[in-house]
């Protein structure tokens, strides 16, 4: 049952699959394999989900951090402001109390100054206090008076600031409260000649009641060292580099970690890229708004920062705390850096796991692929992997197993079918041999005629045929035919036709009559409506006259010496097998020595080349024309080679059949074509004129004396009219063939052929025609009498349904 031929049909391309399987047979991960694809997909999905979660968490956390930072900054601010207030409150309360003391009728300046001195000593912040009087307010004789106590090395020194150089009346700490009529904090200033230090002064105006009027009498001041706030601010720090500062409502820096900035205008301290944003923030800040803003530039560290500001109560001071956002988020960033690291590690772990898991899932498929591969190579014994699970892979395996079984069955069936076909083919081969055996071969060697024939079927058996055989010593039957269709039915039909021809064709029946009957026979038993085109011919080997009947076949060619071609184009009826009552006529042709007739089927002329063109008639005729020396058998082989060469690369579509019959050139005394004339006349009386004209012309050419010519004229007229009047009673057209042959100088031979009723004029007794008296003479019979009298030899033959009268006349 093994059929090694079949295996390649089921082989997949092994190279492509080998890549997927390494030497141990363990499946690797092929590019584009499921494991890689799934992993890639998972990674992408994971990345997407993680990114969203990450972004959300990050934003949320940052918002919380911002909120927390704001709260924290607020707390610190409140705490710091409270601490500043704690420092400032006594500084404000004491001078207010003292100013009240100064408004009495006769204040005890000494006691007040001592109280101030005591306060300066006790209070850590206040380092100096002055009581500055309006001119002549202290004493009517004293223009200016300004006792000043200040702390230095834990002792309080008292001195008078009233000097022409130190014109305290124009100092802000004196002038502004005087004008406003209320206590004020001064801007920070360096009090040269006064405190001789950077300070802020709290000035409280005091009044005196003179003549019922409350008159401004002077200012009592408390100087505080700004250094005190430095300590407070130093403790008000957030995050690593965050810091705070204090400034006046005019933007003058009261306290700042960087001492260089103290007493500077905030606008000069803050150097930013975006001035407008900075300015607007400063404006809001100096207006005393409590706010928490993220500033790109309002910083001294030049990094994006948070700024929290709030006004200090009672004073016109602004407290600000700032810190870089980076530091606020440092923890967040750290957290997320860790998170990303964890993410990457888990991603790597997930890739590994995915590969491992999908690999595990895929392994059965890979095994199935391997098994499939082996099965594909024809190893149907390969066991498929067994799975107990009910998953898709199991289903696939089962389906494949089913397919394998079906395949095995199919191959078994195919092998059976192939065996059956081989049997049919071997029987066909026998049929071919039988068909070929039916064909005659080896035309006997003769001096006068030679014949070659060939049948090359397109399939084992073909529908073409040729045939030839001797009807008697002098008559050869030749035939060629082409059955519609090909193969066994055509070949059977062909054999039938051949048998009918062999049995029906006879010299005693006109050929067209035989064909008529054969057609009738074929039509009667033709259930498949097949038909056959056919040419049958009977050749008189002695005189070279061939009578033939073409039933719808390709016209044969007569190839004459010197390469002249005569196409025998007349058709005598429709193909055999089509119409039971079809009638057939026949034609005749005379072989001159050297003439060859070429019969062929359309398998030759319609042979198709790979370019799609037809072989045609011309190449065939060329070969016959240019090889006059080749015997017909060799010529046929040459033709076959040429046709097959023409069809190179294309399957032979139709049977190729050829038959060539050649009349050999006779030795010596050769008849030239000028010594032979032939005329074919319809059976019409009027044709007599043509016959006479032909005879007269021949007589002139061949130097036949007028007397002889006239006598031959008489003979021909008698024979011709006899045929016209009596030979046919079917009302159809017939041809009467008349041939003149100068067989030798002074001898003319005339052959008259007709296919009419048999009439042997030699059997007609005319011996007593001339001896009767006038009363006894019969009208008629005279013509034949003339004929017999006026020629030297006369013969009659009934052949192939024809009356052939041969006359010889010497002159």
């Amino acid at each position, binding site marked *: 049952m093994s059929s090694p031929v079949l295996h390649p049909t089921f082989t997949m391309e092994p190279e492509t699959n080998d890549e997927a399987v390494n030497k141990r047979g363990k499946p690797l991960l092929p590019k584009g394999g499921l494991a890689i694809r799934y992993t890639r997909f998972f990674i992408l999905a994971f990345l997407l989900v993680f990114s969203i979660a990450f972004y959300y968490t990050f934003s949320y956390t940052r918002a919380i951090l911002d909120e927390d930072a704001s709260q924290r900054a607020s707390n610190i601010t409140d705490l710091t402001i409270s601490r500043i207030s704690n420092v400032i409150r006594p500084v404000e309360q004491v001078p207010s109390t003292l100013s009240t003391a100064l408004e009495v009728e006769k204040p005890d300046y000494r006691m007040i100054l001592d109280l101030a001195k005591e306060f300066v000593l006790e209070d850590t912040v206040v380092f100096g206090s002055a009581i500055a009087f309006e001119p002549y307010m202290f004493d009517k004789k004293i223009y200016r008076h300004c006792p000043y106590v200040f702390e230095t090395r834990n002792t309080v020194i008292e001195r008078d600031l009233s000097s022409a150089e130190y014109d305290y009346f124009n100092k802000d700490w004196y002038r502004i409260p005087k004008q406003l009529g209320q206590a004020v904090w001064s801007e920070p200033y360096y009090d040269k000649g006064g405190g001789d230090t950077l300070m802020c002064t709290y000035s409280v105006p005091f009044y005196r009641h003179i003549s019922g009027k409350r008159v401004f009498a002077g200012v009592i001041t408390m100087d505080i060292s700004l250094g005190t706030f430095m300590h407070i601010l130093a403790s008000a720090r957030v995050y690593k580099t965050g810091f705070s500062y204090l400034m006046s409502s005019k933007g003058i820096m009261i306290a700042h970690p960087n001492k260089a900035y103290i007493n500077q205008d905030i606008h000069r301290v803050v150097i930013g890229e975006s001035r407008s944003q900075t300015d607007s923030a400063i404006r809001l800040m100096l207006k005393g708004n409590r706010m928490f803003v993220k500033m790109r530039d309002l910083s001294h560290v030049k990094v994006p920062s948070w700024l929290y500001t709030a006004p200090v109560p009672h004073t016109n001071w602004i407290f600000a705390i700032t810190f870089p956002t980076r530091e606020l988020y440092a923890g967040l960033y750290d957290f997320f850096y860790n998170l990303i690291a964890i993410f990457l590690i888990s991603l790597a772990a997930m890739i590994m796991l995915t590969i491992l898991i999908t690999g595990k899932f895929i392994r059965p498929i890979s095994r199935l692929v391997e098994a499939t591969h082996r099965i594909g190579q024809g190893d149907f014994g390969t066991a498929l992997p067994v799975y107990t699970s009910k998953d898709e892979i199991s289903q696939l395996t089962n389906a494949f197993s089913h397919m394998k079984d079906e395949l095995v069955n199919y191959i078994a069936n195919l092998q059976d079918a192939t065996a059956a076909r081989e049997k049919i083919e071997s029987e066909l081969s026998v049929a071919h041999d039988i068909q070929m055996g039916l064909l005659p071969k080896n035309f006997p060697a003769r001096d006068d005629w030679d014949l070659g024939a060939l049948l090359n079927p397109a399939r084992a058996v073909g529908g073409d045929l040729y045939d030839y055989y001797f009807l008697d010593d002098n008559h050869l039957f030749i035939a060629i035919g082409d059955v519609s269709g090909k193969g066994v039915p055509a070949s059977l039909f062909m054999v039938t036709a051949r048998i009918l021809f062999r049995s029906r064709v006879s010299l005693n029946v006109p050929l067209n009559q035989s064909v008529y009957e054969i057609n009738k026979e074929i039509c009667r038993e033709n259930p498949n409506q097949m038909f056959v085109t056919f040419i049958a011919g009977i050749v008189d080997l002695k005189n070279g006259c061939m009578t033939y009947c073409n039933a719808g076949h390709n016209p044969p060619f007569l190839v004459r010496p010197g390469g002249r071609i005569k196409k025998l184009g007349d058709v005598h009826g429709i193909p055999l097998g089509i119409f039971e009552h079809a009638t057939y006529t026949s034609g005749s042709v005379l072989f001159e020595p050297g003439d060859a007739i070429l019969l062929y089927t359309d398998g030759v002329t319609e042979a198709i080349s790979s370019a799609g063109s037809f072989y045609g008639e011309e190449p065939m005729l060329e070969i016959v024309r240019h090889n006059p020396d080749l015997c017909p058998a060799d010529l046929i082989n040459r033709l076959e080679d040429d046709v097959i060469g023409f069809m190179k690369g294309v399957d032979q579509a139709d049977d190729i059949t050829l038959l060539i019959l050649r009349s050999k050139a006779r030795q010596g005394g050769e008849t030239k074509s000028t010594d032979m004339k032939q005329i074919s006349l319809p059976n019409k*009386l009027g044709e007599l004129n043509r016959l006479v004209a032909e005879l007269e012309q021949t007589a002139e050419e061949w130097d036949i004396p*007028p007397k002889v010519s006239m006598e031959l004229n008489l003979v021909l007229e008698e024979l011709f*009219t006899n045929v016209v009047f009596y030979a046919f009673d079917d009302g159809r057209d017939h041809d009467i063939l008349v041939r003149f042959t100068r067989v030798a100088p002074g001898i003319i031979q005339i052959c008259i052929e007709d296919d009419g009723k048999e009439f042997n004029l030699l059997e007609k007794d005319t011996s007593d025609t001339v001896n009767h008296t006038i009363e006894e*003479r019969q009208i008629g019979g005279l013509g034949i009498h003339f004929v017999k009298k006026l020629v030297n030899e006369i013969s009659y033959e009934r052949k192939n349904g024809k009356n052939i009268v041969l006359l010889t006349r010497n002159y």
Partner: protein
Amino acid sequence: MELIERKTGKCMIISIKGRLDTINYSILEKRLTELLDQNIDRILINCAQMDYVSSSGLRILLMALKRITMVKGKFVLCSLQDNIREIFEISGFTTIFEIHPNEEDALGVF
């Protein structure tokens, strides 16, 4: 074929010019039948210019001879060309027909 008729006294002279064959014999047949029907019983056929005669032509002449002989008339031929004369001889017609070498001799018998 051409027929030329001439009448001298009681005798009708018909000269046949050309070929007398199967195709045209009926012309002669028709004319002779007409003459015989008119009871003309003396006819001379001058064959001096008759080049050819076939058996069909001979049959007409034979037919005319038979009819005139029956009514005791006279049907005479004259001036046969040699070739034609041979045909007559072969057919044995020379023994049946009265044939004269020339027209003058022939007219003498009427």
